């Protein structure tokens, strides 16, 4: 099991952002996290990534507890959040190079330029990130999944800020993840698109799992609830 969370709960102040969440994701599975704003999707992803400590319950990624062994667990996962984790004054190539070096990977132009090419930033690798549109930043952020070779990818609103071509690109990647046995946890508002990609779905309401099932049904339920 790539990801196993049981009884997961997190309290911020007096407010439980997440409670009683049980979740298992097998290798190569794509799971849709649906839910209104504030339903706990982002908190769940951050808990899984080990960026937030659970108040209750446990997470294990390929058998590793992200709180006990943060470095080991982070080697297994990639996260794309709404923040692009970038330094505005660095260029795309420099940013990629720092990531590659920190991962202990070769970081010459020959190694990195093809990746930038792949995410559609080929001609612009020497421009500083400050001038990038939100969509370009997202593309750049996706290079991390290419570098880290994760077993689990956490995607927080991966389609936002992307144009049609960018969205198709992300879809292609998610398919690629599935084919290569990498699990994906996908939190998205772009329900129809996300539901098509996902194997199954989970609906969060007020931080709790309200419904599980086929991705399309989960999407339909959320749409019905918000309509």
């Amino acid at each position, binding site marked *: 099991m790539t990801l196993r969370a049981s009884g997961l709960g997190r309290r911020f102040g007096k407010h439980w952002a997440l409670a009683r969440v049980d979740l298992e994701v097998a290798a*190569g599975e794509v799971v849709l996290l649906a839910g209104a704003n504030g339903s706990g999707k982002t908190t769940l992803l951050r808990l899984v*990534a*080990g*960026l*937030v*400590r659970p108040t209750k319950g446990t997470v294990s990624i390929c058998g590793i507890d992200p*709180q006990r062994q*943060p*470095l*080991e667990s*982070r*080697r297994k*996962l*990639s*996260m794309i*959040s709404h*923040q*692009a*984790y*970038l*330094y*505005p*004054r*660095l260029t795309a190539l*420099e940013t990629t190079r*720092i*990531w590659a*070096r*920190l*991962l*202990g*990977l*070769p970081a010459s132009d020959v190694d990195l330029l093809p990746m930038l090419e*792949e995410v559609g930033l080929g001609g612009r690798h020497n421009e*500083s990130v400050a001038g990038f549109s939100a969509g370009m930043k997202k593309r750049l952020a996706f290079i*991390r*999944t*290419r570098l*880290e*070779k*994760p*077993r689990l*990818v956490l995607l927080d609103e991966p389609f936002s800020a992307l144009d049609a071509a960018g969205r*198709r*690109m992300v879809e*292609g*990647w998610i*398919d*690629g*993840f599935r*084919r*290569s*046995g*990498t699990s994906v946890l996908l939190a998205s508002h772009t329900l129809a698109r996300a539901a098509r990609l996902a194997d199954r779905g989970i609906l969060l309401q007020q931080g709790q799992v309200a419904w599980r099932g086929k991705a399309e049904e989960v999407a339909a339920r959320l749409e019905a609830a918000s309509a």
Partner: protein
Amino acid sequence: MSTLHPGAAPATTTAATSGAPAPDDPAARSTTSFFATMLTQTLIVLRKDLLLEWRSRSRLVSVVLFGVVTLLLFSFAVGPDVRALREGTAGFLVLALLLSSTLGLAESFRLEQEQDAVEGLLLLPIEPVALFYGKALGNTIFLSLLAPILIPVALVLYSVEPAWSDFLRLFGLWLLTAAGLSAPGTLYSAMTSQLRSQDVLLPLLLFPLVVPVLLGAVKALDLVLTGDAMGQLGSWTIMLLAFNLIYWSLCGIVFPRAIEAS
């Protein structure tokens, strides 16, 4: 469209070449490989910070200008009494460095917070200790860069004329002072940069803490500038070194807890 194969087997061989431990083998994380990783990552962080520093040169320039302005203000505060100014030179220099340092230190983690970049670094398997030493070294270098301007300006303003050979000593002591401010400064700016009142909190926490460094630095600089009749410079330098050793190890030990998940 997609030629990505993100789930492919982890690149064990490439990881080994650059000193990082093999991702899938906990046994590979021996002590030596830990230190190799830490050193590599420290240098990566340092290099990144220096690059960012270079890209935002205007910030360095404004901090230098701020230091010059404080030096000027001290002379107004003391009055046009050349003798009093001369006697206070060492103290004014160190105070100018201290006041400028809070600007530089605060900014160094603000850059990391801006787009949650520090979180991005932590999501990569970075050793928190490496992050600390990289950033602290970066801050030390940043503060050392103030010396070539602030020291001559102070000497001119307060009409002190040390021998040419003393400039190396002055710079060495400046470096030690900068390092002594940077270690606790990096720790506290990492914490306060996430809080609302960083501008107040950072000096409030940092200034009392670095009193030993300040005293040592003022005393040692003063001995260089006004003559070291009793040969005390050596012992004050050793004391500054000792303070540095304590701060750099202590802050390095507690830093990982300061940036862990909450």
